[in-house]
């Protein structure tokens, strides 16, 4: 086995240790900061994110308004932080919802195969072929626009991807010796799925989830642009960019600041996602 041992060591070679920690500290630090601020937004003395001072609209950053004001003269800093709350709720919950449903579908498909697999694949096909616009519009028009409905709509849209990931991984794990062993000693399907397969499924799903968060945060922005996002005046990063876009030339900060915050967060999420993948996926541990 010396060849494969060499293989993993060969690629394990990256940079010296110090840099590794740097790469970990910055994105993790940023994410923790964002989450912390989003949670404590109410208690850190921020101005009301929907308090308007129309006369002071679209003012550049200053001592009074650290990040300037938006199109209705509201404090950008406060809106960014409260927006983090919205964006994170949508970004975290929507893929989570997708993963609960999609994960279950993918797991049963990958484990039971046969007809169930066919059904699941068919279901995913239908969901994928179904125009997401129709779905999003329906939710917002019929059920009304709300944080919950937007999250639900985006959650449903993330089902197929989650189902694919979980199905592929289940397929891979279901044939492993330890699963076969569990079967031969008569373990129930339920037990095998929950005890043998699920634990192995969680790491790749978690890594994928981290990436999904950033995709969903941006997707919420697209919905806001089409007027289907979180209803005003609740701020979200995507919505702020959509609002700020209108004054890109006269007050670029109204769009660029939320865009920069979103960039930093997406970047951090992906770095952390990579690291999680590296830590938990033996096949890629060498990355």
């Amino acid at each position: 086995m010396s060849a494969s041992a060499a293989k993993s060591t060969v690629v394990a070679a990256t940079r010296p240790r110090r840099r590794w920690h740097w790469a970990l500290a910055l994105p993790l630090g940023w994410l923790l900061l964002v989450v912390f601020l989003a949670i404590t937004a109410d208690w850190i003395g921020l101005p009301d994110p929907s308090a308007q001072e129309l006369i002071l609209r679209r003012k550049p950053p200053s001592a009074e308004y650290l990040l300037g004001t938006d199109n209705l003269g509201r404090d950008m800093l406060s809106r960014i932080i409260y927006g983090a709350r919205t964006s994170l709720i949508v970004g975290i919950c929507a893929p989570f919802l997708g993963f609960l449903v999609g994960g279950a579908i993918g797991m049963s498909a990958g484990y039971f195969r046969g007809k169930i697999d066919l059904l699941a694949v068919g279901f995913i096909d239908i969901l994928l072929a179904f125009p997401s616009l129709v779905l999003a519009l329906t939710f917002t028009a019929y059920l009304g626009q709300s944080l919950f409905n937007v999250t639900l709509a985006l959650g449903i849209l993330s089902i197929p991807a989650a189902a694919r990931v979980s199905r592929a991984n289940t397929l891979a794990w279901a044939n492993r010796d330890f699963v076969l062993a569990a079967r031969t000693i008569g373990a129930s399907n339920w037990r095998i799925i929950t005890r043998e397969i699920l634990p192995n499924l969680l790491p790749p799903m978690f890594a994928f989830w981290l990436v999904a968060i950033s995709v969903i945060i941006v997707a919420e922005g697209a919905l806001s642009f089409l007027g289907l996002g979180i209803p005003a005046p609740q701020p979200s990063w995507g919505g702020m960019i959509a609002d700020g876009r209108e004054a890109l030339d006269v007050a670029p900060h109204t769009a660029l600041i939320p865009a920069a915050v979103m960039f930093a967060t997406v970047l951090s999420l992906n770095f952390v996602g990579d690291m999680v993948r590296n830590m938990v996926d033996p096949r890629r541990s060498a990355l």
Partner: protein
Amino acid sequence: MSGAPLLSVREARVGFFTARGPLRAVDGVSFDLQKGQTLGIVGESGSGKSVLVRSLIGLVSESSGAEVGGQVLFEGRDLRALPAREFRGVLGRDIGVVFQDPMTSLNPVMKIGRQIGEGLRLNRGLDAKAAAVRAVELLTEVGIPEAERRAGQYPHELSGGMRQRVAIAIAIACAPKLLIADEPTTALDVTVQRQILDLLQREQRERGMAMILITHDLGVAAGRADDIMVMYAGRAVEMAKTRELFRSPRMPYTEALLRSLPRLTDPTHTRLSAIPGRPPDLARRSGGCAFAPRCSYRTTRCDEEQPVQTWEGARGYACFHPRGVNA
């Protein structure tokens, strides 16, 4: 054993940076290989034998993130000092490689004929047609029936033994001066292992190639290598003519390896002895002899000091308590 050696390795070192810290996979290995000779490199998994040879032919290099040191002379030329293009020329033309697992060492999405012809076109300047013809010849030579049809197939359509034959055909395609066989039979069925080893040996003799045969099985090296180098934890712990090594190993590790080999002369129920303990974690090395924790002759000196290589003519060892020597 006359004239300048075909391959001369001095103080080869390979280091990696891993998540757990830097490690020395190969630590100061030196050896010479004469034309037409066979060197067996023997060691457990992780002893650094594969990394060593891969580093010699540039498959482990600075650009893949490793730290590579030492000197490698091939026909008197310093391979590590050669410009990349010239080095690749030497590699393709004069050195052939066979890897352990033919399942993974052949490109699954490329037809066999093309994989063989590729090196010929690049290094011997053959055109596509000539390369294809030559590929079929080579397939016949390594004992593949219906060579013409096989050349148009993909690796997954062949059996394991056949695939390894294809791998050998690729390795010898450009008539190299040195053939490196990295555990060429480990992944194969026992029944075909011997055929493959015989094929390698035959080709080596007929073509007058030198060969480095890497194996964890002393028995494989026994009948086929002129010299044997035993590696442990990245170091060459013993080096000797095959016969001498088998007759009187110096290093306790070699001794232990030999003891774990079944012999026809043993009584049927002799217990094979296993080496207690496990190979050391290279990233957690302290000073001292790496084998010390598993060695039955260990003294405090072994824990504190790294033994240097001692030479007795052509054979060398690195041990404070060599066997068969009255030190």
